């Protein structure tokens, strides 16, 4: 029916109830995004952080898996065969060179896995030593941060939650440890704790790790928890006073609900970020101590001790210094950049 445009009558067709199809069309079918998913999205948009993450993952994977199939072991002196005199041709090989017996086997038509970075002065394959060094550095960094996290979390949350005299007492201790020159104390304790710990762990499975590494962990546990616990205490103190916590309590929420739904989700990102940033600093400390000869026990390599050993033959074998130097700088740099990226992505309150 033709409709007069000036007719004031309402068009009844426009008021028919929508069909199911229409409804489906109108409703936006998008999943609700969580905080975590948002953060990951932001992180992946950050090119620097993504590249650093890839570098870290690559180094970690090769540190874990390469020793499994590599034909040489980190402490295997290739020139030494039981019952024969030491073969000096294996010491100080240049990259892709072979020792005398290996050359003979190659001429006989065998295929020998190349020494990609050559060998060191004791005739050990240098590539696998660098990989092992990276393994040690990453392990120490990771576990040291976990130790710091656990102790800091425990003491910080007690301090923040209990408050009062306990809080004051803990915070005075934190102040004092904070004002101690950490590196000097680390060196002193690492140097002094080595012997007693060696006696303590002799015969146990811990002996394999080496007394110096254990004393390093002890030092971390003693000294480095303070900044973490300060951070967590501050978070808890400020979160407790937030209006939404008050609102939640006013509507009848129990303490456990407040902790689960408000306190933990709100401080978890800060905690994760500072743990992530703790890893490179722990790696830094470990390599520094190993360089001074206070780190891993020989023949276990660490990137620091490899660099320190390479100093002696530096003029003839500069690559032995450059390789661990590059690896450790790469690890520390990419972990730092990734930690920064994490902070930008997961700390929405930070708007720099």
């Amino acid at each position, binding site marked *: 029916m033709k409709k007069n445009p000036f007719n004031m009558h309402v068009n009844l067709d426009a008021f028919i109830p929508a069909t199911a199809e229409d409804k489906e069309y109108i409703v936006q079918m998008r999943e609700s995004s969580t905080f975590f998913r948002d953060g990951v999205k932001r992180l992946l948009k950050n090119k620097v952080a993504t590249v650093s993450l890839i570098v870290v993952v690559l180094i970690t994977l090769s540190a874990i898996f390469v020793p499994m199939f590599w034909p040489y072991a980190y402490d295997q002196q290739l020139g030494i065969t039981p019952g024969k005199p030491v073969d000096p041709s294996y010491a100080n090989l240049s990259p892709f060179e072979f020792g005398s017996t290996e050359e003979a086997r190659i001429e006989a038509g065998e295929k020998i896995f190349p020494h990609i970075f050559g060998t060191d002065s004791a005739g050990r394959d240098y590539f696998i030593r660098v990989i092992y060094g990276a393994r040690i550095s990453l392990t120490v960094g990771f576990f040291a941060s976990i130790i710091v996290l656990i102790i800091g979390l425990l003491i910080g949350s007690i301090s923040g939650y209990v408050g009062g005299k306990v809080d004051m007492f803990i915070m005075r201790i934190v*102040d*004092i440890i904070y*004002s*101690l*020159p950490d*590196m*000097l*104390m680390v*060196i*002193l*304790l690492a*140097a*002094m*704790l080595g*012997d*007693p710990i060696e*006696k303590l762990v002799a015969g146990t499975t811990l002996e394999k790790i080496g007394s110096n590494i254990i004393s390093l962990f002890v030092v971390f546990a003693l000294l480095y928890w303070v900044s973490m616990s300060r951070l967590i205490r501050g978070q808890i103190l400020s979160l407790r006073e937030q209006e939404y916590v008050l609102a939640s309590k006013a509507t009848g929420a129990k303490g456990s609900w407040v902790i689960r739904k408000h306190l933990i989700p709100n401080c978890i990102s800060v905690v994760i970020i500072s743990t992530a940033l703790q890893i*490179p600093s722990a790696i*830094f400390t470990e*390599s*520094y101590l190993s*360089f*001074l*000869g*206070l780190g891993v026990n020989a023949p276990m390599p660490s990137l*620091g001790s490899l*660099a*320190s050993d*390479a*100093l002696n033959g*530096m*003029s003839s074998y*500069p690559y032995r*210094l*450059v390789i661990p*130097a590059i690896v*450790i*700088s790469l690890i*520390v*740099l990419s972990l*730092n*950049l990734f930690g920064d990226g994490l902070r930008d992505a997961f700390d929405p309150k930070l708007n720099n």
Partner: protein
Amino acid sequence: MNTKTLLYIGKRILLMILTVWIVITVTFFVTRAVPGGPFMGEKAISPAAQAALEAKYGLDKPVFEQYITYLTDIVTKFDFGPSLKQRGRMVIDIIMDGMETSAVLGVTAAFIALGIGVVLGAVAALRRNKLIDRIIMVITTAFVSMPSFIMGSLLLLTFSLWLGWFPANGNAEGGLVLPIVTLALYPTAYITRLTRSSMLDVLGQDYIRTARAKGVSGTKIIFGHALKNSLIPVITYFGPMLAYIVTGSLVVEKIFAVPGVGRDFVNSITSRDYPLIMGTTIVLAALIVIMNLVGDILYKVVDPRINLE
């Protein structure tokens, strides 16, 4: 200087004394906890000689008495006892000898870092997101992530072995150049980043806009308003920088064979010269703690807006 500031300074000095005391105590008892005592690991000596040695160094007395003696000697006479391995020399003399070289190293590095860092940071901030800013940021990021021992070793490799510009030994003429550069690189990079970010912060402030609106010239704004205010955070880095230079000098002096306190410290650890380990730890720790205090007080004095705790 109002009473609040004075109270703050007093509190900090008390904390400083407490810290130094704790360092002395920890150092003492940790060293004594080592099994076998200071003479372990030497060639086998007869029990009589062992007893004589222990009597000479006062090790036969109860530990607590030794501790009191040690503490009073340090407080009243700066006496850290004799060195065990360098016969006939007092620990304090060894430290003072090394300190001359180390001080030259550290102070020069600190001044270089401050000078270059502030200039580079200001340039980067004023040319924000331009090519020069990008270059400065990339280089400083790399330097901040490179451990000092790696930096030192690579500099040694490049400039003394390959190019031959500087001697590898710290004793030789011009031998201190590379150690100073090594020590200065990290603080320079750090100060550059610090100055850049605080300068950007200051440039966005209202009073800068006001100054611009009033027609103050660009140079005058930068030097009269922006730079001065953006240097305040740099002052807070004073203490940490010194701590870095002190710990950094340990490895740097090892790499370049510089006859300073750092090398003494490292050598004393490997040779288990306990009095020297204790003495060096205490002196260096006290130095760091005092410098931290000076930095913090300067910070509060320079910027009256900062509330005390």
